[in-house]
């Protein structure tokens, strides 16, 4: 068919490739519904309070009071996780095909790790890994005589 099929035929050809995935999805749904349904029909019903809680053998779930803010440190942790997570994701396929990729792969991976390493050194030295450090306060606009753009209609009606 090549790249020059009409829109309809391109879509049709593309869809036939997805047939195994569709079958897999149908099987997964059927299996999930069947096992949950069988369990609901066959199991004995003797509910009690600890059994109904979300984590049977853990802490009681706590509802956060409305409007409570999370510390920004959690976001730093999440970002750090992504940095190293992505590094691992890239390292793994490279390690698998290390011999076939040869010099090209080695150079590319060295550059990549160097980049991540610089980011790591920077975060470490700037106290990003220091859990007890207090974040800097947000500076107020006391030396700006212009009201913040908050609430302004972006079309510029002022």
């Amino acid at each position, binding site marked *: 068919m*090549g*790249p*020059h*099929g*009409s*829109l309809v035929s*391109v879509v049709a050809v*593309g869809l036939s490739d997805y047939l195994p995935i569709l079958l897999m999805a149908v099987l997964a749904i059927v299996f999930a519904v069947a096992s949950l349904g069988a369990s609901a029909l066959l199991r004995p019903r003797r509910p009690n309070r600890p059994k109904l809680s979300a984590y049977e053998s853990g802490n009681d779930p706590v509802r956060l009071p409305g409007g409570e803010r999370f510390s920004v440190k959690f976001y730093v942790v999440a970002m750090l996780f992504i940095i190293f997570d992505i590094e691992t994701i890239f390292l793994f396929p490279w390690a698998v*095909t290390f*011999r*076939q*990729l*040869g*010099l*090209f*792969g080695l*150079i590319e991976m060295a550059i990549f790790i160097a*980049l991540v390493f*610089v*980011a790591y*050194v*920077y975060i*470490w*030295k*700037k106290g990003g890994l220091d859990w007890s450090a207090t974040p*800097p306060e*947000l*500076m*107020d*606009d006391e*030396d*700006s*005589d*212009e009201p*913040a*753009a*908050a609430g*302004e209609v*972006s*079309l*510029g*009606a*002022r």
Partner: protein
Amino acid sequence: MIGQAVLPTPELVFEPLLPELVLVVFAMAGLLYEALAKRTEAVVHLSIGLVGVVLAGGTSLWLWDWDGPATVLGDAVSADRFAVLARLLLLVVAALGLLLGHQYFARSGDEQRGEFTPLLLFATSGMTLIVASADLILTFLALEILSLALYVLTGLTGRRAANEAAMKYFLLGAFSSAFFLYGVAMAYGATGTTKIAAMALALTGTGEAQALAVLGFALLAVGFAFKVSAAPFHMWTPDVYQGAPTPITAFMSAATKVAAFGALIRVLDVAFQALAWDWAPVVWGLAAASVVIGSILAIAQTNVKRMLAYSSIAHAGFILTGLTAAGSAGIRAAMFYLVAYAAMTVGAFGTVMVVSGRGEKRTRIGDYTGLARTNPIAAALMTLFLLSLAGIPPTAGFIAKVNVFSAAIDAGYWVLALIGVVTSVAAAFFYLRVIVLMYMQEPEPAAPSLTEKVGIGAENSATAILAIPAAATLLLGVFPGVIVGIIRDASVLRW
């Protein structure tokens, strides 16, 4: 060794990427200096940045006479002269941004702004990469590199307005990136490739997959229109340009447009060249909406930075007007406009920075009343840049406007040229209003003179930086020939 075949890997030709590599190395040097040095000096940061930019410029110049393959690294990076020219323009803007930013942070006395130089270099590396990109995947990556750095730069001072601007920019920018990526996927579906040259070949064929290709182009256009702040995707521009620290506004208003238009020219005139009849009306509509919305809403503004932001929307429309003419005529007009626009917008925001003194004070239009008395040099510079933005001879803005309008008329879009001329007249009102305020009214009695606030030395060195864009604005207005020949040699088209 189990005897597996060696995977096909691209040949390692790194020379056409040297400017980006230099910028990234110096950016990381700046980061490490900021992280490891006991006491950091702003001058060292500035030197790291300037040396990086100059070296990157030197390697770009060397690439002008590159005689290796036209595209390298698996056809992902283009080594043509168009990339060289756009890179040089971006690097000049980056150097001006570094100098202005150094002045800004030195005056406001903010500590711990060592990230400014590395982030600006990272943003510049993304911008220079996007204009050299010959593969839409690389274009997307470069777009993200420059955008992420710009989001952080916008909020760098930690003022509330700056943080708000950064958040708005980030949310809307991430949204537009998704559109762009979806457009790449559609274009891939239509042509079976993400490489720009191969895409052009695939589309000149029978053209059966046109519907998908046009859909892909439409989505790409949304992403680009957001980045160049063309209406109706301009909503973020006034808030971000106003909230960001002024030198960063100066840098990003000029450099982002050059980078995004450079990539857009490749997409329009190379990748989707065969579909010119389909995309020209889209570009026409974006151009018309941008010049009208930008020019009319700028009249209602009371803040200079906001007014210049709306003016930048209108200028995006003028550049798009030139691009409606497919082929080399449109590219030449757009490139000249980009050079002129970069000079005058960096100059205008730079002058705003000089006038605002410390931090973000004195950015209302009313603060310019009687500026010719309190600071005649700043008033003269501002007048020059505003006249150029308005398109009045003998400035670069005039020649640039003539070029884009004549390109559009030659391509048969005289209605668009007419809309452009009429809105230019309307736009002249708000530019001239500032000039009238500066020269024909007495200063407010309470207005403190600038030199009292920041010291005469700081003011002079900031003003001296602005001599560069001022000279460029005048030179391109009087002798446009100096750059026209270079632009002709730097065409993106090879046929």
